[in-house]
């Protein structure tokens, strides 16, 4: 009951995200997000246009390396709702993860669950999103909340590379009570999606998505 309360609160506190976190039906998607304090690698498969299953590995650590945690999970991604408009698209996504976690500030291996949600709105020139996810194990609760906003330098067509400037504010409870702000350059070209930038402390960040 307490976990659900924390989860529900975290959803309303936050809000941030990525582009579509799953591909089209029968496609595979691989994603990565790498920075000093957060590293995530995911592979998922779209069973239907709205459901994907996969595996993910999330490593979190504090800036001074004093605490670290590794979660390995089976994941489920669900497109809860999509609004298709003539010039825009909006989505609500649900994420769920079940697996195990290990860390240097607790002993042994613990079972973990990680529910999350994402809401996003996108046109060919503008992007905004919000994301909240909570990582829960016995006696351990970490949440990651973020919000993104950005614009494309120009409207590109399907077979052209499109550059975006995206700014993300992200707070990871395990790392800090402060929001980490990271401006990033996003490049989209067909099945490739890459973001690179550095937070305001100069720590580099790289993320990618690839569908096949």
């Amino acid at each position: 009951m307490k976990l659900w309360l924390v989860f529900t609160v975290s959803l309303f506190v936050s809000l941030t995200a990525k582009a579509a976190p799953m591909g089209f039906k029968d496609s595979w998607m691989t994603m990565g997000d790498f920075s000093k304090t957060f590293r995530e690698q995911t592979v998922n498969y779209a069973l239907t246009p709205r459901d994907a299953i996969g595996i993910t590995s999330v490593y979190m650590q504090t800036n001074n390396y004093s605490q670290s945690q590794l979660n390995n999970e089976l994941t489920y991604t669900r497109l809860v709702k999509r609004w298709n408009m003539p010039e825009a698209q909006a989505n609500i996504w649900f994420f769920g993860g079940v697996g195990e976690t290990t860390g240097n500030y607790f002993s042994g291996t613990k079972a973990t669950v990680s529910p999350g949600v994402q809401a996003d709105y996108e046109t060919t020139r503008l992007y905004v999103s919000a994301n909240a996810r909570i990582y829960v194990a016995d006696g351990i609760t970490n949440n990651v909340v973020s919000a993104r906003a950005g614009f494309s330098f120009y409207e590109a067509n399907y077979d052209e590379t499109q550059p975006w400037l995206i700014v993300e504010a992200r707070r990871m409870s395990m790392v800090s009570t402060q929001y980490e702000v990271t401006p990033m350059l996003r490049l989209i070209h067909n099945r490739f999606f890459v973001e690179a930038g550095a937070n305001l402390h100069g720590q580099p960040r790289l993320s990618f998505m690839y569908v096949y």
Partner: protein
Amino acid sequence: MKKIFIATLLAAFLSPAFAVTSMKATVNGMVCAFCAQGIEKRISKMPATKAVYVDLKKKTVVVEPKEGMVLDQKAILEEVKDAGYDVVKVESVSKSVAELKAELAGDK
């Protein structure tokens, strides 16, 4: 009468209607190449498909059939829907994908 018949026959053979008939669909929600690629990938795999063109600016998907084959319009619309989008208008046009691509590019 004979001349009219020959002229009609010639017109029939030379008219665009005798050329390829592509399917042109206007699609809502198609704003990103990364997200829309499912449309191209899945429709390209259909047996009657010769070429697919996705135009994000015009929110248009054009499908050209292979010579002598007929597109399964219902199946194509289902693929677009399965890719996560809404088709709001469908037209049959007597042009190839290459011609429509040039035409759409010229409208920009």
